[in-house]
């Protein structure tokens, strides 16, 4: 029996209203901007195709300004030293009381979960709170925790928790409890600290754009298979094909006052740029010797991410969604497998970064829109309030953020109370990791306590 259908949210109502703004996502590129100087990008990995197009094919007959090449090259020159934040969204409301299972020190747990409770004696206790255990299927993350590379938030959320997927996810995405917020909190970072011409600065790995990255003024990208981003043109080849593909991107660079057409053009323009950026990877990715990943899309995306970072692509913020956590029924059948895949994939990604020497540039933030209700409903659990979150990496401070509030006293809806606020974590990530003032990005930033998330 399948779990359920309500995994996720509907932001359709709110976001349809934002469609007009989204259409203005890409500013016009001004004619006459300089072509790229020989900036620090390795020609092997990126510039080769661009150079070929720019010099041998187009020359003075260039069909459209290629200013983005300058932007990409400039950004790539900075990339080796820039810090990267990876946002991983466990959509559907992941059950924190499975990930971090209470021990018998919390006697209500067995009563709450007559069929779903992790049996006594199973799971590795957390060193910082021995009344919580890492679920055995989450051993990959537990291993990194043992190395001091995971900051655990056992009860993160916000007061007045909204139990709609739609609304709560939206709050986390926009970084405020405002149903009418239109831009992702990471998108707002890019609007203020990103550039106008590098779609890779905010990259969603997967089939869908991740709303955390939604930016008002600057381009971002979505790619499901970064090593398969070629374009098939039946009946067109050779130099005509090269010019055709470039002309496709040029159609996106045209300006318009029509919001719908502008939205389509912005997406086409970003597509043309991304095609150039990913050109060197169309033969696939290779991982360092000794690094292996589990199967599945989630692991494959992390594997691609490590290789792209190593290749010098100018990534700054990356978002990945992994679903299936809305376990209204059949929770025991699906959740452990999902946690196994996520935990082991994150461990492989960390090992990959370490093998490539990139471990100090990357921090991973794992979140879900809410936790689930302590009381089970039969074979699953309904929507709850506070849930679990994690910050992972060699530069993670590895200190628990907020304590586990226990199960003896719950909130008015019989859900877990929060002991840390997601907006405080966002402020800390912005200030301690990305090195910017959170004030202009997170509304009422000054009102949230910042946990120490980054190694001293």
């Amino acid at each position, binding site marked *: 029996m399948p779990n*359920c259908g309500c995994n996720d949210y509907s932001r359709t109502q709110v976001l349809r209203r934002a469609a007009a703004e989204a259409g203005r996502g890409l500013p016009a590129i001004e004619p006459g901007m300089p072509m790229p100087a020989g900036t620090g990008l390795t020609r092997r990995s990126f510039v080769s195709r661009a150079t070929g197009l720019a010099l041998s094919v187009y020359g003075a007959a260039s069909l459209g300004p290629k200013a983005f090449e300058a932007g990409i090259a400039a950004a790539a020159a900075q990339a080796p030293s820039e810090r990267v934040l990876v946002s991983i969204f466990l959509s559907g409301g992941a059950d924190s009381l499975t990930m971090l299972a209470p021990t018998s020190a919390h006697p209500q747990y067995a009563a709450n979960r007559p069929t779903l409770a992790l049996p006594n004696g199973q799971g590795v206790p957390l060193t910082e709170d021995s009344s919580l255990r890492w679920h055995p299927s989450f051993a990959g993350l537990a291993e990194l925790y043992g190395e001091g590379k995971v900051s655990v938030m056992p009860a993160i959320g916000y007061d007045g928790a909204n139990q709609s997927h739609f609304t709560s996810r939206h709050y986390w995405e926009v970084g405020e409890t405002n149903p009418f917020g239109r831009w992702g909190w990471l998108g707002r970072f890019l609007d203020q600290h990103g550039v106008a011409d590098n779609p890779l600065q905010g990259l969603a790995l997967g089939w869908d754009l991740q709303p955390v990255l939604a930016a008002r003024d600057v381009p971002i990208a979505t790619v499901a298979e970064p090593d398969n981003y070629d374009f098939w043109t039946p009946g067109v080849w050779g130099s005509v094909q090269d010019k055709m593909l470039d002309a496709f991107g040029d159609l996106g660079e045209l300006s318009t006052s029509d919001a719908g057409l502008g939205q389509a053009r912005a997406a086409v323009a970003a597509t043309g740029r991304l095609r150039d950026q990913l050109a060197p990877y169309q033969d696939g990715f290779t991982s360092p010797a000794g690094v292996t990943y589990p199967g599945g899309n989630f692991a494959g995306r992390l594997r691609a991410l490590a290789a792209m970072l190593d290749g010098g692509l100018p990534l700054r913020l990356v978002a990945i969604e992994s679903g299936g956590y809305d376990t209204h029924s059949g929770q025991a059948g699906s959740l452990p497998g999902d946690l196994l895949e996520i935990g082991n994939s994150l461990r492989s990604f960390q090992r990959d970064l370490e093998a490539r020497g990139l471990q100090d540039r990357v921090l991973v933030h794992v979140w879900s829109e809410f936790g689930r209700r302590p009381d089970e409903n039969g074979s699953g659990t309904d929507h709850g309030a506070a849930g679990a979150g994690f910050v992972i990496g060699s530069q993670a401070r590895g200190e628990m953020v907020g304590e586990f509030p226990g199960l003896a006293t719950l909130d008015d809806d019989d859900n877990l109370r929060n002991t840390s606020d997601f907006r405080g974590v966002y402020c800390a990530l912005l200030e301690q990791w990305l090195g910017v003032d959170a004030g202009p990005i997170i509304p009422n930033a000054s009102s949230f306590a910042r946990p120490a998330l980054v190694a001293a």
Partner: protein
Amino acid sequence: MPPAPTPPAPTPPAPSPPAELSPTSPVAIYSGSFGVREAERLLWRAGFGPSPGHAEALAAMGLRRAVASLTRPSGAATLTGAAPTDEDGTPLAPADLWGHDHLWWLDRMVRTDQPLVERMTLVWHDWFATSNDGVGQQQLMLDQNELFRRSAFSSFEQLVHDVTQDPAMIVWLNLSENTRWSPNENYAREVMELFTLGADRGAYTEQDVRQLARALTGFDFDWSDELGMQNFRYVPTRHDNGNKTVFGQTGAWTWEQGVAMCVHHSMHPSFFVQKLWSYFIPTAPSAGDRQALESLYVSSGHQVRPVLEAILLHPDLHAGPRMVKPPVVLVAGLLRALQRSIDGEYWIWYSESAGQRLFFPPDVSGWDDSRWLDTSTVRGRFELVSRALTGRVLEGDEVDDYDETETPEQAVAAARAWSHDPNLSAETVTSLTSFAAAALAGAGGWQLSTYRGLRQNALRHLILASPDYQTS
């Protein structure tokens, strides 16, 4: 305790009005010129774009009759053209073979003479978004699809009533696990949040979710190793007969009463009107228009057709900004325009990579219509144009012997005519003409013909993949 108020029973579907009646509207009706361009947009918004000659025929009718031809079809739909098959020419098995459900419906979109019926079926599929990912039995999805099709223009109250006891929905939102002993809130929450009232409007509380869940208890089905899930039914002994307080009204509500209360909630008409409007017009209605349409909706007994006709006649549709075509609308429209039929399973993959696999919406909220386009789905759209053009491009001698005197302007004009003259902006035509000139830059000898042949193929592709063609 005072007697509990009794919500009205669902209203039966209204009979279709005679086709000769002209649709009316309590709000503004577009009064500008209704020519081929306007008819082309109407066919994309309220269908799957024009098949050759359809926009001209609609334009000749004038706006009101054109709308009536879409909203008031008579009898059963006629499917014209070749029946769908897989790559081997074998007929589809929509209930049994993986992905054939998608192909089966896509084929109806391509070949039907009642496009708005299929488009409304797609609207309901998005509105009451149910995924076979959670249902796991294609026949149940097809049954639900038929429910949506026969409910295209009729009573929304009846539709919500029917959806609640629809087997696919019962599985999808765990209604069969919602019992008096162990309530499961899934359907109760979503019927209010996504189907009838909307979140964050103050229409209901968490307490209403829990109480409505109790009213909705009682559904069940049997499992058969041969037949799968079957014998869907309401079992009174599974139902919670106690009093429930929903929206401040206390009574021993049944499931029928529970869903009817959602439709009769004072905040439902505004939800309905805005949501239906948003499928056809990208800008929000004015407050006055919205209220007039809400009154029309209520006074009609929660009928869909009157509101739909008013939307399709509205100036904001005909004179407002463009709107991005949903991926399957683009696919069906390309096939209609190019007079192609479904001849392989590949259309499953191409639709999916553009962001829309039928019967598999991403979640119960449906597809996010404000975010169809990103660097992943734009590539998907480019590639599905590639597939649609396969077999239709110039090849061999058609390329090598191409007219070597053709100018860039002539090349663009020829490609536009070949693709049935879709609505392109002036700046796009200029950009295509620049490409047409550059494609021949430096060419000589044999290239003068061959490159012009390749250029013609490229221009057809660029027109159909252009941002202009992704919108209507």
